[in-house]
């Protein structure tokens, strides 16, 4: 492929990405103020049903690695490193839950074991295939947050 063609392709895919995610906030542009992220990262509401799947998916949220969640008692092996998330929708607002999922370190402090799911504040030597990527996409975050708000006791 000639250099010129490459540039045209690159520009075309950039334009595509740009239009598809026009309203999506990039990780570095997210502002966590007073432990809250007020608006949806995508400008769209999340889908709690999809969020429930993302939450349990080992390749995505894998939240059960560290949290017990009675709503997913059909799934084996809930971890206990973090607090049980039963009733978490009563304890935190959607804005706070969004901040926790995006970058828990901004809420719990630098020492927390909970990964930040939509942040570039990561460890050293990130594996090639994860470089520059967040664990969850912006829409995944919104879906998970929508799901968390349904967890009430």
């Amino acid at each position, binding site marked *: 492929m000639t250099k010129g063609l490459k540039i045209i392709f690159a520009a075309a895919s950039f334009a595509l990405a740009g239009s598809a995610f026009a309203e999506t906030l990039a990780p570095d542009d997210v502002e966590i103020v007073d*432990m809250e992220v007020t608006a949806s990262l995508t400008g769209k509401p999340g889908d709690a049903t999809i969020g429930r799947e993302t939450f349990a998916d080992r390749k995505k949220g*894998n939240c*059960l*690695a*560290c949290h*017990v969640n009675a709503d997913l008692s059909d799934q*084996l*092996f*809930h*971890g*206990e*490193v*973090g*607090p*049980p998330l039963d009733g*978490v929708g009563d*304890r*935190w607002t959607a804005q706070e839950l969004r901040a926790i999922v995006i970058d828990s370190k901004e*809420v*719990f*402090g630098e*020492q*927390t*074991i909970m*990964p*930040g799911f939509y942040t570039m*504040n*990561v*460890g*050293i*030597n*990130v*594996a*090639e295939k*994860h470089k520059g*990527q967040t*664990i969850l996409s912006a829409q995944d975050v919104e879906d998970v947050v929508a799901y968390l708000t349904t967890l009430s006791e």
Partner: protein
Amino acid sequence: MAKIYKTGVLLAGLLTAGMSSAALAGGPVDEKLVIDDELEIITRTAAPEGHPLDEVISGWHYRTEETRALEADSFQNPGMLYVERGEEIWNTVEGDAGKSCASCHGDGEEFLKGIGANYPKWNADANKPFNLELQVDQCREENMQAKPYKFDAADQKALVTYIKHQSIGMPVEIDLSQGEMQEWWKKGEETYYTRTGQLNLACATCHEDYNGNYIRADHLSQGNVNGFPTYRLKQSAMVSLHNRFRGCIRDTRAEFPAAFSDELMALEVYVTWRGTGLSVETPAVRQ
């Protein structure tokens, strides 16, 4: 574990969590490991000076009853097959010099007693710490004119398992006063507390802050190395220490260093020190 809580809400959440995890896990089991009803293994002991924890505890305490039982019975311990294979290798001639390990060192059980409990050890010629794998390779190359083993070759694991096993029951103690061992220890400590990968976790995050808790199906231990190489039921195979290190680093979604690289050798020095006083358990059985 110092944490900053910005709200009382979180604290309330953590208090309930503390209660339920006590019910779930209860940390290490309160039992004794005696192999074949005769060999007492030190699986808990006071931590050495300068250690962040009060007590060092073997990974044995965090495994299921079935797994613990396998290690307590050397006829059932699948790792013992590797010990047998290692003994064969010890007595087998290899390389252009026409020698076996036994040609120079004689009876393995006699010569090797206690050696594995004191590795890694400063090697003045190489000007770095040597673990057993590096020492074996040096003897193969220089004394037998044989090729060094490829990392994790079946024979490398069997021979190192055999060597370590000759110190079973003896407390781990490494000599940090030789050469530049202190500097290597320090470097290893730094690695232990450095967060890696997309998941942003350090060894200490899991093994120091959360040992005794379940992370998914895994009961987190202190990550001690006194049982290596260990037999892992999940893999139905012996697993070397550097393989385990690399696996734990990979699980943070980070690139992992080469086996026997300076970085992992420093980590081995430091993590071995953290388990000072625990008995050598090789071949330990883990899940």
